[in-house]
């Protein structure tokens, strides 16, 4: 980065020797802006899908239930045993036996709201909330079989697994798009710099003729292109972040899905794009300029 920062200080005399190439300049700025815009969106997409996969994965792991079907006299004891086992299980944040009202609400879709829960041999349900690590379902099942034979653990994972896989896939796609876009930006900036240098062969020849050093000549071009690419990418990034911020939020509290956007420190990630573009432009132009100069005696 140090040589780039040096460029910012500038050398107006060296700067003026490069003609203001209207179209290549606009092309570079626009390319950098457009690709930065797309890159921010791809970044937002892959962050959002990562979050989604995370949330779905968490929901998946956390949605465990234990069902205790036991004769009425053993029911309280087994429930007690189950809760004790769960308290002793690492990875379980909390466990709670559902009350009658809650059980009735859960069954309402099947029986209607008037179900006489108390008169039915309905199993007691225990809701398990995991912490981040998750617990060892197989271990819990073994202990339950020994200490609470009427208890069955149902961790629901079958239901949500494809969703998580889908979110992961989307995430991968977002990352792939991001990589592709950054590579495309690099290639385009390199080619635009090459085009500008090719168009300015005569400028370089004149400068060599009057005794200018290669570094002096290259520097003027490199400075232009680095600033243009950085500027363009900054504009594109700003626009894109604005657009992302303006997207209507999707995650109303507790919603199943997450919105496209950044959260917290995620907002800092896109800020890497303009310096990246500038860095690419710096090296691409430097390389192209030095190569072009080699051909001028």
């Amino acid at each position, binding site marked *: 980065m140090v040589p780039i920062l040096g460029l910012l200080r500038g050398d107006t*005399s*060296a700067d*003026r*020797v490069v*003609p*203001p190439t209207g179209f290549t300049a606009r092309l570079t700025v626009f390319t950098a802006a457009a690709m930065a815009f797309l890159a921010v969106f791809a970044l937002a997409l892959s962050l959002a899908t990562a979050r989604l996969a995370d949330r779905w994965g968490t929901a998946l792991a956390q949605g465990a239930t234990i069902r205790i079907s036991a004769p009425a006299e053993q029911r309280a004891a087994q429930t007690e045993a189950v809760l004790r086992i769960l308290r002793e299980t690492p990875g379980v944040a909390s466990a709670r036996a559902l009350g009658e009202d809650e059980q009735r609400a859960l069954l309402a879709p099947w029986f209607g709201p008037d179900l006489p829960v108390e008169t039915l041999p309905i199993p007691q349900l225990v809701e398990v909330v995991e912490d981040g690590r998750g617990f060892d379902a197989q271990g819990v099942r073994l202990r339950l079989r020994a200490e609470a034979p009427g208890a069955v653990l149902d961790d629901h994972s079958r239901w949500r697994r494809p969703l998580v896989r889908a979110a992961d896939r989307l995430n991968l796609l977002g990352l792939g798009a991001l990589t592709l876009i950054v590579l495309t930006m690099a290639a385009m900036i390199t080619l635009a710099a090459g085009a500008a240098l090719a168009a300015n062969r*005569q*400028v370089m*020849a*004149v*400068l*060599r*003729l*009057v*005794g*200018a*050093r*290669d570094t*002096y000549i290259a520097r003027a071009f490199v400075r232009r292109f680095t600033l243009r690419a950085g500027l363009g990418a900054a504009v594109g990034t700003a626009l894109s972040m604005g657009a992302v911020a303006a997207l209507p939020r999707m995650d109303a509290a507790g919603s199943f899905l997450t919105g496209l956007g950044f959260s917290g420190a995620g907002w800092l990630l896109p800020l890497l794009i303009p310096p990246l573009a500038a860095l690419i432009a710096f090296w691409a132009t430097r390389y192209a300029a030095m190569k072009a*100069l080699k051909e001028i*005696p």
Partner: protein
Amino acid sequence: MIELSGVSYGYDGRPLIQDLDLALAPGSFHFLTGPSGAGKTTLLKLCYLELTPDKGQISAFGKPAKQLGRDGIAQLRRRVGVVHQDCRFLDHLPLLDNIALPLAASGQPIEAHAADISALLEWVGLDGRADALPPQLSGGERQRAALARALILSPDVILADEPTGNVDWEMSLRLLSLLVELNRMGKAVLIATHDLNLIRQAKSQVQARVLRLRAGRLDVAGADL
């Protein structure tokens, strides 16, 4: 200050210059003539190291050219003023900046040389055109501007390729007298030209050697001019 010894050169293998010796000593004045396509421009390009000889040695200011890197060549060119035959400029910069370009390229402030620049512009008759862009100049004006640019760093050697091809006779004489004056200050001058009248005129002012390039060889033209 620039010496060629045993130099041969050819484009694409076609030999053009063969086994040529030339020494541009301080205070010397040379004319270079020869038919169109004889290799005059090529010889000048060899002198300011734009071309590398196929055979033979070139040394500039006492150093063999081969030992100079690209930066060394750049440094050298600041001591050699060159007027190209097809005088090229930076078309986006006004004439003044173009003439001051050697100053900028060698890191000298233009302000310190403002007087030199305006004196030069006046001498070559371009004092009113300092703000014009090169494409807005006439053919002769461009040639004069190229000469001014070549002289701005006060070089030790002046190589001019057909510097009067597009200017009228009076202006030719004016430019010639400028070069003669610089020559009297000890600078080496080499002018490639077809204009025999100019050569005759110069001979009345300085001790000029006239070299004729023909079939790849240099010979000194005598009184037969």
